[in-house]
């Protein structure tokens, strides 16, 4: 999941925004979102039989 999040956020970050700083921040934000949402969904599904 971490590798997937990293690869996807690299592409999303490289595509978006105008400056390198904005791209880096956007990529990090997307990466964090993938990780947090993945972990939250994982725990929700863990409790669903």
């Amino acid at each position, binding site marked *: 999941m971490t590798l997937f999040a990293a*690869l996807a956020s*690299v592409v999303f970050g490289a*595509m978006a925004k105008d400056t390198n700083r904005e791209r880096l921040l956007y990529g990090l934000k997307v990466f964090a979102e993938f990780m947090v949402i993945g972990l939250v969904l994982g725990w929700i599904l863990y409790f669903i039989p």
Partner: protein
Amino acid sequence: MQAEEVEPAPGSAWFIGAAAWFVPGLGHLLLQRWWRAALMGGAVWVCFFVGMAMGGHLFDLNAEGSSVLLQVPPMIANLGTGVLYVVSWLLDYGFADDPAQAARATYEYGNTFLLIAGLLNYLTMLDAFDIAAGRKP
């Protein structure tokens, strides 16, 4: 209210777009966007080979009955990897329905990586096209 006029893309932009689809990263290389080529193209290549190493399955239209239609969306996603898909298809590598392969713990992860590799390359292709058409700096 008038619709905004959009300038037609030059032929070279279509060529760059096709090259970007066929070889992940090539579109940005032709545009001399080295970092973008390395990051975006590299992500697609890594995603594809990680998916293969995990025992992922590539989709084609080799299915019976109405399930052929179900193969079309993932096949379109897989096709996004361009030459990687074509070479795998020519070598018949990654397409077999092997129960032992499907039983691997990483099988579904591999499938997802292979699908995402293609979808990421479609994004990369559109980015290269937009740059070549002058719609993006």
